[in-house]
């Protein structure tokens, strides 16, 4: 009975829920893409959180500095480019540490998280806070004509995917593209070979080091885009530590999606829905017993849910998720005299 009520309630609030889910899922999905592209090639990256934060800051700083000279539009575009570039450069550092130096990958990621928190906090206090100026502006949302929004049934779904800013809208495209590339292209085959059995890949003439470098840099560029979303599309400002664990939920979404782009995207959507529901339940309280039950679930539980779900999945209680075989193992060419 309660379950039926809950489903009915979900359908009634769906028009409110759908348009905000994609936005909430965007940084998670982009971060998870970073994780998938990295780990499919055998490089563990727990520094996604830090890369996201640092890129968010640099993108914001560029938009903020150029806003008054070149206008809102170009400064935002350059802000996004700066954020993506920051992600790629940090990816290069991670690749150098994990592939060339063969440093411990977890330690390298931890270093990235601490460094990003430190440098952004430092520069924020030094440059942005004292300037007292306004922000870099935000990327606008595409406004659809009312006839389209008003369409029965499909209206909210169209709003979910198209009444969004450019970064959120691009996520679906990137997810599908990477999914196809990963399983249907030469790059994807090489990536998976390097992540599952680097020695075999090396024997067949694939440059393991080059492939891993390429994947880490490319993946981290997506983490940079996630950062740009946070400062330039979602909020229009920068706060210390504003990623607030999203880089770690992205890891969770990746594991939930079993290291596939589409799966990770669905995971991100699910976690986005959990967050959205936690908000909506308090605004539009359902009637009867269901309302009592849903309201009695504290918002914090919705927030903690993605992490707990991930632990359950990892422990194999429901559908075990298994990483690529050579994930996290540095590759060393042997027999070089």
């Amino acid at each position, binding site marked *: 009975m309660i379950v039926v009520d809950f489903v009915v309630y979900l359908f009634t609030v769906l028009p409110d829920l759908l348009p905000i889910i994609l936005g909430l899922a965007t940084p998670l999905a982009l971060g998870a893409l970073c994780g998938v592209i990295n780990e499919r090639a*055998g490089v*563990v990256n*727990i520094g996604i959180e830090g890369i996201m934060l640092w890129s968010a800051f640099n993108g914001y700083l560029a938009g903020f500095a150029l806003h008054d000279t070149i206008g809102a539009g170009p400064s935002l575009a350059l802000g996004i480019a700066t954020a993506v570039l920051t992600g790629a450069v940090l990816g290069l550092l991670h690749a150098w*540490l994990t592939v060339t*130096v063969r*440093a*411990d*990958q*977890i*330690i*390298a990621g*931890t*270093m*990235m*998280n*601490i*460094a990003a*928190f*430190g*440098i952004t*906090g*430092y*520069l924020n*206090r*030094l*440059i942005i806070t*004292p300037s007292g100026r306004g922000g870099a502006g935000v990327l606008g949302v595409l406004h659809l004509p009312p006839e389209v929004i008003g369409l029965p049934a499909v209206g909210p779904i169209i709003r979910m995917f198209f009444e969004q800013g450019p970064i959120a809208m691009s996520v679906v495209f990137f997810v599908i593209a990477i999914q196809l590339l990963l399983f249907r292209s030469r790059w994807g085959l090489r990536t998976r070979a390097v992540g599952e059995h680097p020695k075999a890949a090396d024997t067949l003439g694939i440059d393991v080091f080059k492939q891993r470098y390429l994947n880490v840099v490319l993946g981290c560029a997506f983490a940079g885009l996630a950062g740009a979303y946070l400062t330039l599309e979602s909020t229009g400002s920068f706060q210390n530590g504003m990623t607030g*664990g999203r880089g*770690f*939920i992205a*890891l*969770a979404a990746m*594991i939930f999606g079993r290291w596939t782009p589409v799966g990770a995207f669905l995971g991100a959507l699910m976690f986005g829905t959990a967050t959205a529901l936690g908000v909506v339940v308090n605004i539009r309280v359902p009637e009867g017993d269901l309302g009592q039950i849903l309201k009695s679930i*504290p918002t*914090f*539980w919705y*927030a*903690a849910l993605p*992490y*707990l779900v*991930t*632990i359950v999945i*990892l*422990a*194999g209680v429901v559908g075990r998720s298994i*990483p*690529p*075989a*050579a*994930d*996290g*193992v540095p590759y060393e060419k042997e027999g070089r005299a």
Partner: protein
Amino acid sequence: MRQRIARRLSAAWRTASIPVLSTALALVVAGVVVIASSAFTGNGFQPLLPVGAYLQLFVGAFGSTTAIGNTLVAAAPLMLGGLAVGLGFKAGLFNIGVAGQFLAGAFAAAVVGASLATSTGIVAVPTAFVAGALAGAALGFIPGFLKARTGAHEVVTTIMLNNAIGFLLTWGVTDLVRAPGFSFPRTGDLGNSALPILLGRNLHIGVPIAFLAIFVIRWLLERTTVGFQIRTVGANPNAARYAGMSPLLVITFTMALSGLLAGMAGAVQMLGVIGFYASGISANVGFDSIAVALLGRSNPIGILFAALLFGAFRAGAPLMQITTSVPVEVIDIIEALVILFLAAELIVRRVFRIRAARAVPEEIATVTRTWGEQVAR
């Protein structure tokens, strides 16, 4: 006699050289960051700013008895947290969950401490302290058990627990144990549960407890069968199994003990410094502990010195920010650089032209396993 001292010194330098030089290099590079960033401030380009800033940092950490007290007080949770991470390293485990276990310990100590606020200190203090330690141990046990039982990698489970526990404790302090009479959700005053002050203004009993823990863990690792098992599992779990040990049992036990130490760190900080639990209390200790353990090479004595160093940084930073307006976050930058140089030793070796040392078994044991390799059952 003289030769023996010389030999001992050179052996000590061999182990300590990379950490010491990494720290020195980190301070230099952070200094360059400070100089470069000074160009963007109202005061203009100041090439000598790092000298003044580091001087103030030193004065803030050691300039008076109160300052030294602050340093020791800041170092105490870092010693315990550093031991927690280092102990994990010895068994080949990476406990990133110290931040969460620290919060759990702080929360439990705050709740139990507040409920015993009017009891006598001799009862209240140990009870609250033990409650914190046990909460940390419980939270450390979960990833250890999951790893041993299902192979779920402790790095991922502890990261997830870190984030989840933050929300769950905020819920706890908002809905379950909120003390009446305050404008925001927090636990009640500690009263008699606060750690007694031993010396000066702030040197509480947690400091000697942390020192004691250093030597207890050192004894445990080097003089007991359990310690031998932990180190063997860390060096080679398969060899440990053939020798009749149970790697799964050792892993679970080590994670729980690691969580216990992290919980103690939380309890010390809560009962000795913070005083009440509220959402958003700093879990900085969790990440500082990783740096401390790496810098101390997972060796308890090394951790002692590393914790004192970072304790000094944390204690001295506010004065530096006030007098030279170099933001306190420079400490995080230094910390990240230290980890960077330790992770990529070859940078340090290139800069200081040190030959690669022969691999010492002690150092091999600190290498963690990532999720590609799993412990065979």
